[in-house]
């Protein structure tokens, strides 16, 4: 199959695929504007659940916690992940290099339940009170690997002679990184931050393991509410989450794509 051809088989499977993926989400978004209190009966257009949502203090608290955790963990993960990417792509052969890269990438394939459980055990062992900070740290540990993957794929194609030129013109290695390397790989770093941010935003499993009484994130809140029965506010809340995550992912891919175009145009690594 090396020709793009329109066949009924393709069209049908594509349609089914998309319907399967997006119909539930579309329904959820539509019902978030439902006037009726019953989740499954359409009672006309209304934004009352959004209003109710913004007046519900426990939801707003959860939203605020989620946002803070996401921003903070994404930022820390971006710094650490970028450093890991630098070591992975720059340091030549050193003892334990394979082990190091394996350890950086393995959380990508580790079941979340295991990551969550092991972090929980760790925090209990150290005797930390679980709450805001433990969730943040937990999110850093797994989103860091995604950052490392995104940034190192950019660093591999980075033209080292640019850095050498900076050194040659009088920069020390740190200044060369800050003034030349970082601005050039910035799109990848921003994309990685957005990715880490959205990963943190929609994480339920690891947050459940590592949170304490004082800190509940939105996904946790939604999950616990749904177990008590479907409420229209949840639809509204989920719609907002979907919007936030979509904006993050789309922005990340746009930034990456634009940077790619600029690079292709200027013709340097």
């Amino acid at each position, binding site marked *: 199959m090396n020709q793009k051809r329109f066949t009924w088989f393709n069209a049908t499977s594509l349609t089914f695929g998309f319907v399967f993926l997006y119909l539930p989400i579309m329904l959820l978004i539509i019902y978030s504007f439902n006037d009726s209190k019953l989740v499954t009966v359409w009672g006309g257009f209304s934004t009352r659940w959004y209003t109710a949502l913004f007046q519900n203090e426990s939801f707003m608290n959860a939203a605020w916690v989620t946002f803070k955790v996401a921003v903070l963990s994404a930022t820390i993960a971006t710094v650490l992940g970028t450093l890991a990417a630098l070591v992975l792509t720059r340091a030549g052969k050193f003892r334990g290099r394979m082990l190091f890269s394996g350890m950086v990438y393995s959380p990508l394939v580790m079941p979340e339940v295991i990551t969550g459980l092991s972090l929980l055990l760790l925090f209990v062992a150290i005797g930390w009170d679980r709450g805001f900070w433990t969730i943040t740290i937990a999110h850093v540990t797994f989103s860091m690997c995604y950052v490392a993957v995104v940034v190192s794929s950019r660093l591999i194609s980075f033209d080292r002679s640019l850095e*050498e030129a900076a*050194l*040659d*013109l*009088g*920069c020390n290695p740190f200044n060369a990184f800050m003034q030349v390397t970082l601005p050039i790989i910035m799109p990848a770093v921003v994309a990685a931050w957005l990715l880490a941010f959205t990963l943190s935003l929609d994480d339920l499993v690891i947050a459940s393991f590592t949170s304490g009484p004082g800190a509940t994130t939105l996904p946790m809140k939604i999950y616990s509410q749904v177990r008590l029965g479907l409420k229209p506010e949840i639809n509204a809340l989920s719609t907002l989450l979907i919007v936030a995550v979509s904006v993050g992912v789309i922005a990340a891919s746009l930034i990456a794509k634009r940077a790619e175009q600029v690079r292709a*145009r200027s*013709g340097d690594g």
Partner: protein
Amino acid sequence: MAASGNTSDVFAPWNDASATPLIRFEGVTKRYGDFTAIDNLTLDIYEREFYALLGPSGCGKTTLLRLLAGFEEATEGRILIGGKDISKVPPNQRPVNMMFQSYALFPHMSVAKNIGFGLKQEGRSKDEIAQRVAEMLTLVQLQEFAKRKPHQLSGGQRQRVALARSLAKNPKLLLLDEPLGALDKKLRERTQFELMNLQEKLGVTFMIVTHDQEEAMTVASRIAIMDKGIVAQVDTPAMIYEAPKNRYVSDFIGDVNFIEGTVTAQQDHEITLQSAAGQDFILHSDKPLAISSTAWLAIRPEKIAVSKEPPEDRRNKLQGIVDDIAYSGSISTYHVRLSNGDLIKAQMTNQRRLSNRAITWEDNVWLSWTDTAAIALTE
């Protein structure tokens, strides 16, 4: 032809025993694992020289520059700049700037920012930087392009920005790694002359890497011919061409014909060499050669005359059949096959129109040259 040691008006500090070199390589070796890229290399470069490193791809030219710039550390030996060992000095503290083969312009900065980058690192004031940048832009004739980004420039313009950037800090030594490699032929030739003028005007020592022998001959005050990590010969372009030390050098610079033989007689600088076919040739040698030792006669194609009649007044002559004629406008190169099957190249300037020329394919011709045209090589 031979360089004399005490001509004061000619620029030749390498002949002056009291001159101290700006750069000195002392037994420098660079290994990458088991591979030896630079092998026990010793050479001197003097102030205001235009020094060319010439050699085939992979012979270690870039490695040599990177050792000087500080991006690589020598495995053995020392590198001195102005008498000081710089082996442990990091690249950002060396009085050396490099113009990269890929130009390595910062894509996120304007032309002016690129040129001013080195000055900014020195902590110079804004006004000072602006003034120097303007000066450099004038020097490379890019005044109107100050605000452009590198990707908005042509190849030739980028090359000039890279040059301006590496000269902005007024280094003692400028390293140029194949600076003209990416330019087309016309632009390259023009830029060669611009580089020479610039170097003369600024008085900066230039060290240029190239694999183009014509380029090296045009621009350099001295050329170092490199071969697999060693320096085969360092000399002025004329000496490299007229008095190569060995067959590798003479073959690398321009075209040359070799005839192997045995030395049968020597008188002053005149040597008689007998070829395997038993024919005697008269040639010139600066150094004495042992009788009955093996040597090679080396002669450039343009020093050989082609004629239909046997030349009466010349002692060096060979008979053969024209195998091929390569016509290239002003000159024609005749490939003449000898009776033993060897090919000899001879070059003649085309004084007449093509149709009037007497010699053509499959003609029986005589090749001849004067007693001093050929030289003897022992290795």
